[in-house]
């Protein structure tokens, strides 16, 4: 039946061609922080960082704007990533025990007609999965535990759960047959073996100076220095303590092992000696970095990474789990020390970078990978063509908040994308009452400025105790505490008061006026100021229930405005607080800065406020008399929720029971089963849907869904003037004629002070018969184009609207799109989307799309996002369907709800709490990563052949794995450690290990370079090790190395 809908505009080839030049759907780039990251790698040569996620995505980041994304075919979690340094290739190990080789290649992809030279993309080249040897190794024995890429990048060593080590040629990923090193090939003294297996391979490390040798650490504690060429164990270190990880010192004369009891040992590698029983030293003279290691009883719930250097000791206290970390350090192999410049810590919810060169180790604000969800996003709003004046003032205000762009240590790759044509701003409103301003002009989404509205109100928390401020000076929080904690990072999912949540935002980019409206009916009008200000905010209340009797609001209270003046930092500062009563969540807000008016709507009605004179102009109740639900506040859906919960529990219980019991089928039990099945069928009735037209008294019918200001013809066809339009959930549209002093036909602009009151008079009421919620109202000028924004016409920034021909109004409900004539409201065109397609409109926007073929040709279209997640484009005002694209999965309700469109045909929606997917409907305006990387290998290399390897499991129960150690300042080596040697409680370490991460050493005058922090307490319960985290930390105590005591 689609055919006759689309047949109408015909298959006019001319039109089809124009459509192709106008519209094209592309998902272009993901902004924000990857959801559920679980692996991290860094290529110090190319200066690229890779992050793997649980959903199987690999993302590579370099300097701002340089991004590559790859997605594994199977959505298995990425367990490990390793760069083949300098080659632009990387290896990933998935949870399903498969290895994948990825390559940055110059495959040419055409997009938007413009082909860019030298642009590279990430592509999977080949994969390999380890097979257990039948009869020899069980399935779990071939699970990969560790990977080691030799620095020559031609050989991959794979350690397995079963203790075997296999070798694969790179980049072909082919197994070297018969070269695998199995446990029985390692000859060890009988008295050490004691008949027990050596356990899984826990660590593999290449000798820093002698390329052919690797250090193998087995779980039970044995460490073997293995010569690959002679296939001979050169040296054995008979450790007795369960091993977690190994790290070489740069000179190769010693290495450090970390153990499950939270200790670590330094072993000397002396030649001539085949067996070593005891570690040599147990003091740590270096700068050490490690995660975990906190005394579990007191700090077990913290997520920490500790940096120690000489007397400096900082324990970075994060708000989410540490996944992994690395240092950015020198790649010069001749260097004695690593000279780390920065520490990069990947947490579950954000990325934190610490500048190790600057005293105090401040954190560096990242130019991308911003944790959008530091507090949950509740709304968003996009502005294009932001004037430079507003942009600069915002940036200045943002700099005051400590968002100075520091020197970003990860700077690989080159951004080839042309500079953005215009500045674009995305505003996100958050649950904690903040509004964040993001620069979305280009691929890297960068924080610009953050506005907090909590200080307008009196809340329980002390406003000075703002944990979100990343610039907390280190001293402030340390106090007497040991270890010296320092809060780092901005992920803070806990809201002080849910009523602070931002629901709607409206910003005028020309007058720098901002309106934010929140969950407790608060509407705050703000103005931009470059100076600190200390003032009281005017408060006025608007009762939306004015003439209604018998309603009692049972929802939350309004927020208490702050009584005393508060200091407001430069940036947007509140001018007026308008409080809607009852304090239901604001569902719609619209600002008209030119008329100094703000309109807002809740589930009870809408109001109009003149913020210049600070008077309410209008309050209109939209409640239907039968709507009792509207009074119950946000908990109105409890009942149905309870019911559905009960039902699903019942189902779960039933399935559990049936899963547990597997009775032997006897004739009687069969009958019982059949009866039970019948009963099941009866009880769990199939999903049914009631077919009934909407009635006027459906619940929440009064919710005001949209508001719109327009200068148009409402009274008669000859005089236009300001109007206000409001649409409700039950298909009603109210149109008010406004009398704004100084605005209107035949009068000049208000010469300064506006005088007299604004007045609003109801002009029309339209009740759509199908009663579907009105999603949007938009007035079209005589040419059928949407009216320009406030100030655009008066400041000559846009073509003046056509006021000579009759206007019309486009009303989009969830079911239909309709254009009515004005001033006499008569239906002109319509499209019944739901009746035809069975989908409902969720979001609509007017977009102007430019043609790729003709510079000056553009069309204005109406874009609709439906509940099925597809996008429909219609021309305006004829409302003919143009194109349709699938965009979001229909199950992804939050994605659909979060979608926001830009005027030039792009859009954003949340693909996870922390990531926006950017997409483009325009064939011309596409913001996508176009970047290149200087590689050592030629871009065209094609190597074929896939190979196999064997590996073993990933799930060992290791306790901790230390990672990186840093140098210690030379000289004073015998530092004493603060307290007595308490056993450290370790954090369990996951099985990740990073061959490319070297111990890094700061300061040249250090004598040693590596060590491992260690420290899990053996008598503690060891939590399982599925997540890659790092290192433990010697907590309290005089530091004594925890040698492997017998």
């Amino acid at each position, binding site marked *: 039946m689609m055919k006759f809908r689309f047949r109408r505009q015909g298959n006019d080839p001319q039109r089809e061609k124009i459509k192709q030049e106008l519209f094209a759907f592309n998902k272009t780039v993901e902004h924000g922080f990857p959801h559920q990251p679980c692996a991290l790698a860094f290529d110090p040569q190319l200066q690229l960082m890779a992050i793997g996620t649980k959903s199987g995505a690999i993302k590579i980041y370099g300097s701002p704007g340089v991004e590559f994304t790859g997605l594994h075919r199977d959505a298995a979690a990425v367990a490990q990533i390793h760069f083949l340094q300098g080659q632009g290739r990387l290896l990933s190990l998935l949870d399903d025990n498969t290895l994948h080789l990825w390559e940055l290649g110059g495959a040419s992809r055409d997009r938007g007609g413009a082909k860019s030279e030298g642009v590279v993309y990430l592509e999977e080249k080949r994969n390999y999965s380890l097979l257990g040897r039948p009869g020899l190794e069980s399935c779990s024995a071939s699970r990969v535990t560790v990977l080691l890429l030799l620095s020559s990048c031609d050989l991959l060593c794979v350690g397995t759960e079963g203790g075997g080590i296999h070798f694969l040629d790179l980049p072909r990923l082919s197994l070297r047959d018969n070269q695998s090193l199995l446990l029985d090939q390692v000859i060890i003294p009988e008295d050490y073996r004691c008949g027990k297996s050596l356990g899984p391979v826990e660590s593999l490390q290449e000798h820093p100076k002698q390329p052919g040798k690797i250090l193998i650490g087995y779980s039970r504690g044995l460490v073997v220095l293995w010569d690959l060429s002679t296939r001979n164990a050169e040296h054995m270190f008979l450790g007795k303590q369960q091993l977690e990880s190994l790290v070489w010192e740069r000179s190769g004369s010693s290495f450090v092992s970390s153990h499950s009891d939270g200790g670590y040992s330094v072993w000397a590698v002396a030649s001539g000696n085949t067996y070593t029983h005891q570690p040599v030293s147990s003091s740590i003279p270096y700068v050490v970095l490690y995660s975990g290691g906190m005394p579990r009883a007191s700090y077990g719930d913290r997520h920490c990474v500790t940096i120690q250097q000489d007397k400096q000791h900082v324990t970075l206290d994060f708000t989410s789990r540490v996944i992994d970390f690395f240092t950015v350090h020198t790649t010069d192999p001749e260097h004695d020390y690593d000279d780390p410049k920065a520490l990069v810590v990947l947490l579950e919810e954000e990325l934190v970078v610490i500048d190790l060169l600057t005293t105090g180790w401040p954190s560096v604000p990242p130019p991308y990978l911003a944790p959008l969800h530091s507090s949950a996003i509740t709304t968003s709003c996009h502005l294009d063509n932001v004037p430079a004046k507003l942009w600069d003032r915002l940036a200045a205000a943002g700099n005051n908040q400590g968002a100075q762009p520091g020197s970003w240590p990860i700077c690989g790759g080159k951004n080839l994308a042309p500079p953005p044509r215009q500045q674009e701003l995305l505003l996100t409103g958050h649950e904690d009452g903040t509004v964040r301003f993001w620069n979305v002009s280009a691929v890297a989404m960068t924080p610009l400025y953050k506005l907090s509205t909590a200080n307008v109100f009196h809340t329980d928390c002390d406003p000075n105790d703002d944990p979100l401020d990343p610039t907390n000076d280190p001293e402030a929080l340390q106090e007497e505490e040991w270890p010296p904690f320092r809060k780092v990072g901005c992920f803070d999912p806990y809201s002080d008061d849910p009523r602070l949540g931002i629901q709607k935002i409206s910003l005028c980019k020309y007058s720098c006026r901002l309106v934010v409206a929140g969950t407790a009916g608060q509407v705050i009008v703000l103005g931009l100021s470059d100076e600190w200000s200390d003032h009281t905010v005017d408060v006025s209340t*608007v009762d939306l229930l004015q003439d209604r009797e018998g309603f009692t609001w049972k929802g939350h209270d309004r927020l208490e405005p702050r009584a005393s003046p508060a200091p407001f930092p430069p940036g947007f500062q509140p001018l007026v607080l308008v409080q809607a009563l009852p304090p239901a969540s604001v569902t719609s807000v619209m600002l008209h800065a030119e008329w100094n008016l703000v309109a807002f709507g809740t589930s009870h009605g809408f109001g109009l406020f003149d913020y210049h004179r600070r*008077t*309410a102009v209008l309050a209109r109740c939209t409640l239907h008399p039968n709507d009792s639900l509207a009074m119950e506040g946000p908990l109105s859906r409890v009942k149905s929720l309870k019911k559905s919960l009960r039902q699903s529990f019942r189902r779960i219980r039933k399935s559990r029971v049936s899963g547990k019991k597997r009775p032997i089928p006897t004739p009687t039990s069969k009958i019982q089963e059949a009866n039970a099945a019948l009963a099941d069928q009866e009880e769990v009735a*199939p*999903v049914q849907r009631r077919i009934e037209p909407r009635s006027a008294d459906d619940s929440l019918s009064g919710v005001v869904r949209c508001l719109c200001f327009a200068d148009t013809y409402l009274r008669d066809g*000859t005089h236009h003037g300001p109007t206000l339009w409001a649409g409700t959930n039950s298909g009603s549209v109210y149109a008010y004629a406004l009398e704004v002093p100084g605005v209107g036909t035949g009068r000049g602009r208000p010469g300064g002070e506006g005088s007299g009151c604004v*007045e609003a008079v109801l002009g029309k009421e339209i009740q759509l018969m*199908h009663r579907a919620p009105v999603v949007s109202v938009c007035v079209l000028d005589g040419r059928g184009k949407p009216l320009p924004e406030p100030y655009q016409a008066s400041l000559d920034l846009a073509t003046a609207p056509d006021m000579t021909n009759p206007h019309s109004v486009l009303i989009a409900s969830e079911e239909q799109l309709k254009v009515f004539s004005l001033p006499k409201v008569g239906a002109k065109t319509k499209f019944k989307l*739901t*009746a035809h397609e069975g989908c409902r409109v969720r979001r609509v926007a007017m977009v102007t799309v430019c043609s790729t073929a003709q510079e000056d040709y553009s069309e204005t279209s109406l874009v609709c996002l439906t509940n099925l997640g597809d996008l429909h484009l219609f021309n305006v005002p004829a409302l003919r369907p143009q194109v349709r694209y699938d965009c979001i999965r229909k199950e992804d309700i939050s994605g659909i709800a979060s979608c926001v469109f830009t005027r030039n045909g792009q859009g954003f929606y949340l693909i996870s709490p922390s990531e926006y997917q950017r997409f483009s409907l325009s064939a011309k305006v596409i913001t996508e990563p176009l970047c290149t990387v200087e590689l050592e290998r030629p871009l065209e290399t094609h190597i074929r052949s896939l190979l196999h390897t064997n590996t073993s499991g990933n799930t060992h129960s290791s306790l901790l794995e230390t990672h990186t150690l840093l140098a210690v300042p030379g000289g004073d080596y015998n530092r004493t450690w603060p307290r007595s040697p308490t056993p450290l409680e370790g954090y369990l370490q996951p099985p990740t290990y990073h061959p490319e991460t070297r111990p890094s050493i700061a300061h040249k005058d250090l004598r040693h370079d590596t060590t491992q922090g260690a420290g899990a307490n053996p008598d503690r319960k060891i939590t399982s090790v599925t997540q890659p985290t790092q290192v433990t930390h010697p907590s309290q105590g005089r530091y004594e190395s925890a040698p492997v005591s017998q």
Partner: protein
Amino acid sequence: CFYVIRTPERNSLFEAEYRRFALKMSGICGFQEFYRLLQTVHHIPGVEVLLGYADIQGDLLPINNDDNFYKALSSANPLLRIIIQKRDVDEPVVFATNSLQRRKKGLAGLRPAQQKSKPGLMIGLPQDFRQISSIIDVDILPETHRRVRLHKHGTHKPLGFYIRDGVSMRVTPQGVEKVPGVFISRLVRGGLAESTGLLGVNDEILEVNGIDVAGKSLDQVTDMMVANSHNLIVTVKPANQRNNVVPRASRVSAGGNSSSGSVGSAFSHDSAPSTASQSVSHHSNSNSVAEGDSDEDGDGDLIIETDSLPPYLPHRCVSNGNGSHRESPLSSSLGQRPLPQSMSLSMTTPTHNCSPTKTSSSQESMREDGNIITL
């Protein structure tokens, strides 16, 4: 006042005569008296006529006894449209829902051009009832399918049915295949669906208002039905296949095109516009379904033009009392000034109206239309 349309000759369609005249409500006490009065007024004494009136919904309803005569009188506000037709023995007049505005309904237009023929057998149609449902397009559908139209418009009964997901068997070239389908799962007692007797539990839903539901989810079909609920046409494959309506033509010959057994078309076969539309080609007709469908429900949207909306005042004095406003502290003016509500508009209106403005012509015409305009 009554507004009367008289159609003396039903075959010559354009020979209609319109009369408008006033009548004292109390003057007439019964149907017979009124009937005679009309005969007198129209100078057609002795001619057998049928009386009908247009009710608020726009439906043509009969006047043939005292009861419905009084009902008609009570619905006059203030005009009552009465339609008089010469009683024709051959052609029973049907009073159907929306028959005034929408002669041609449903998907009958899908059928290829065909000439009408008179039904051989005449069964008297109930003239005193409002139509609530019909089986339509019998002659173009397979015998196993049924296209049912439910006229929600004007009744207060709920539609009263539920739908569910299910599995349907289809015969394909590859053999019998199971495909997902949507079925009626429940009929509400006393609902419109039940009372028609045309829909039953487990009937498979194939189309909604001409749109195939294959491949659509239960929620999509629900939304489509709700969106069309005021005039719902569902094509079903009844679970009970014994009561199928068999188009007469198909019995004679497969290619026969002279069917008029369709109940739906019987209702409308006397209207000239529908004849025209039937003779158009198949394609444009399917188009006209989609379009005609859209046309019809603009009626629903209710536009209330507020009479009190002041006309544009070219020189309203801006400086009115503004001085005092400006001097008053902002805070004090908050919440004290009564906010105009839509109800309280009359308060402000008189001042506008008494100002010496010439009422524009458009204003006047708007007034004449009255408060409520149905499109």
